[in-house]
């Protein structure tokens, strides 16, 4: 009897233990399985509303001159002030001239009146509302997406927004970052929040290793070529895999920067030692005990091993060659050994007519080798590729060589005053100038041609920027998106070449 009781008790205990194990496992499953995006989203959720939208807290708001004036005006009209003024950081970038002479006179010397008014208005608004601004000739001025990480103003774990679609750049730090419109700029200024709907999760994994001469830009162009410009629509993309893990922060920023060209507003990379080494010691970054506390949290900013993604795309690093866009959409991209396609290659009528239109606009013929495309101009710069590593990569290619005679102008536009200073300290400016390239002041420049740097009609440009849309770099201009190394090699050769042959 006693034994029976004991058995019964043992049995009960076993059942209870089993139940506890199961409960623990279930709890583990509930707690685990979060993606980086899920974690960042949950950490910033102020409240969920009945209509399925959520109020998301914004840690950092970056401001530039083009999309902010009406937002500030809105605040003024409503008698509102910024919710948390120190969360904002401003710098003019889109409209600033890059020629040293025009630039040296500051805002009032900007020749184009509309540009001058926009830059001046940013100064006035920042003064009025007490927002920190790195103004036109401050050494810390630059492209907003270069300045944020460079200053440590964008940090891992933050939500970062800006009235610019390339805000995803900051996701490279393990932040949740995306572009917003002018009405949302005003909303963030006034409430420090955004009304959002959660996106789906996509993992883009790049396995293996990149070959020599193949860079982050080639990786992201290859990704866009694979998923298409709408492939990421509705998703937040996390870039992972060995290739991404081995990239520098500059390279990761180049990749996240172009998430929007793949249709996704958000691109990001998990935090690791490379991230922490990059952030440590930057002016706005935490220090001392606060640094240790921050690092403890930032170390959790990665997708759990059992996280579930709604979509996964896998590329093999070894398969990626240097890329060149031939058409008028970033997905119209080929490896350097590629041949311009023919409309008849496409069965989808929309793609076929798109190819026809693109060939006509670009002045290319089907069957033409990419390496036969002759260039009139070269642009090395933009929020995609204007960081110190990009400039080093380009300088290494042009060192001791001369720009080809058929290239009318080859511009190198550093992403910020500090990038420029660093490059000059390393003597990169001299390498560029001796090779016949022009060394400019920092800004967005020819990426979108809001300032004086533009393409003429029909001109072909090897550009390290992010968009090859019709007219983007000037009316009738023909843009080919490439890496800094490929742009540099094209400047020297006068046509596209495989930069791997040069290294």
């Amino acid at each position, binding site marked *: 009897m006693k034994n029976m009781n004991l058995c019964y008790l043992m049995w009960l205990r076993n059942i209870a233990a089993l139940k506890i194990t199961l409960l623990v496992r279930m709890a583990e499953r509930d707690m685990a399985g979060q993606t980086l995006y899920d974690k960042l989203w949950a950490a910033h959720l*102020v409240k969920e509303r009945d209509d399925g939208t959520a109020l998301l807290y914004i840690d950092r708001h970056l401001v530039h001159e083009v999309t902010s*004036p009406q937002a500030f*005006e809105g605040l003024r009209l409503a008698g509102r002030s910024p919710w948390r003024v*120190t969360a904002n950081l401003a710098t003019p970038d889109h409209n600033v001239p890059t020629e040293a002479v025009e630039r040296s006179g500051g805002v009032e010397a900007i020749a184009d009146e509309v540009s001058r008014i926009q830059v001046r*208005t940013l100064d006035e608004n920042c003064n009025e509302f007490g927002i920190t601004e790195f103004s036109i000739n401050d050494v810390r001025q630059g492209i907003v997406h270069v300045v944020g990480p460079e200053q440590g103003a964008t*940090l891992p774990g933050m939500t970062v927004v800006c009235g610019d679609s390339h805000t995803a750049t900051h996701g490279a730090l393990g932040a949740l970052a995306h572009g917003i419109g002018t009405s949302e700029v005003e909303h963030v200024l006034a409430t*420090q929040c955004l009304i959002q709907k959660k996106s789906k999760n996509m993992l883009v994994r790049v396995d293996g290793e990149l070959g020599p001469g193949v860079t982050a830009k080639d990786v992201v162009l290859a990704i866009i070529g694979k998923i298409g410009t709408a492939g990421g629509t509705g998703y937040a993309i996390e870039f992972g895999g060995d290739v991404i893990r081995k990239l520098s922060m500059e390279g990761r920023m180049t990749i996240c920067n172009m998430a929007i060209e793949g249709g996704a507003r958000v691109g990001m990379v998990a935090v690791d030692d490379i991230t922490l080494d990059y952030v440590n010691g930057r002016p*706005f970054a935490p220090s001392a005990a606060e640094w240790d506390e921050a690092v403890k949290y930032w170390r959790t900013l990665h997708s759990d091993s059992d996280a579930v993604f709604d979509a996964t795309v896998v590329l093999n690093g070894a398969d990626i060659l240097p890329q060149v866009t031939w058409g008028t959409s970033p997905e119209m991209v080929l490896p350097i050994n590629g041949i311009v396609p023919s409309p008849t290659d496409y069965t989808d009528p929309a793609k076929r007519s798109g190819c026809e239109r693109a060939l006509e606009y670009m002045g290319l013929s089907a069957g033409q080798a990419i390496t036969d495309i002759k260039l009139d101009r070269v642009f090395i710069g933009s929020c995609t590729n204007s960081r110190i590593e990009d400039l080093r990569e380009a300088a290494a290619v042009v060192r001791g060589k001369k720009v080809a005679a058929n290239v009318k102008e080859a511009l190198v536009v550093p992403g910020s005053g500090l990038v420029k200073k660093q490059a000059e300290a390393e003597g990169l400016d001299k390498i560029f100038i001796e090779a016949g390239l022009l060394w400019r002041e920092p800004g967005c420049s020819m990426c979108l041609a809001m300032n004086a740097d533009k393409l003429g009609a029909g001109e072909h440009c090897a550009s390290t920027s992010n968009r090859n849309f019709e007219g983007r770099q000037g009316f009738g201009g023909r843009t080919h998106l490439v890496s800094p190394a490929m742009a540099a090699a094209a400047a020297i050769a006068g046509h596209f070449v495989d930069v791997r042959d040069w290294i």
Partner: protein
Amino acid sequence: MKAFTVLDGIVAPMDRANVDTDMIIPKQFLKSIKRSGFGPNLFDELRYLDEGQPGKDCSKRPLNKDFPLNFPRYQGAEILLARENFGCGSSREHAPWALEDYGFSCVIAPSFADIFFNNCFKNGILPIILPAAKVAELFTAMYADEGYKLKIDLPAQTVITPAGESIPFEVDEFRKHCLVNGLDDIGLTLQDADDIRAYESKLMTKSPWLFREHIA
């Protein structure tokens, strides 16, 4: 956004159908960096005899004496009486911005273009849809009576004529709530200000480095 409850205002006519947003505010004014100041260029091509350009001083421009908004009797008007499909064309928010800046808070018409209709609510303007026959009656009464006013009672959803007639109108409950309380998206979010503050104070404990001030 300013609240809209009861408005007792002078009525001015825009007596033509299909008034498009280009007519409301021509494209050359969209270059502005401001959201305000479009009022002097509202209906620019109808109101002035010369071509309007940004920065041109409108007080020195020749007025079209035949355009009703230039008539002394309609000065200070706050209600615009219009015909079918008012606000068609582009989605520019500059159109309601121009109407609002001029001084209009309400547009009455038999029908509106969708986007314009939505944009009005975001900018404190009440668009009222009344049957075409009723709008025609209002036009007749307005023309006959200098200084003709209408009383718009949004909470009661009625337009009251000087003769004492009360004309009911429909309005979406949520939009009415926003207008009556002067709530735009920002206003709505600010209703959750306590939640935002509560979140912020938790964040300050968890991630204090986010709140450090940095001197430029």
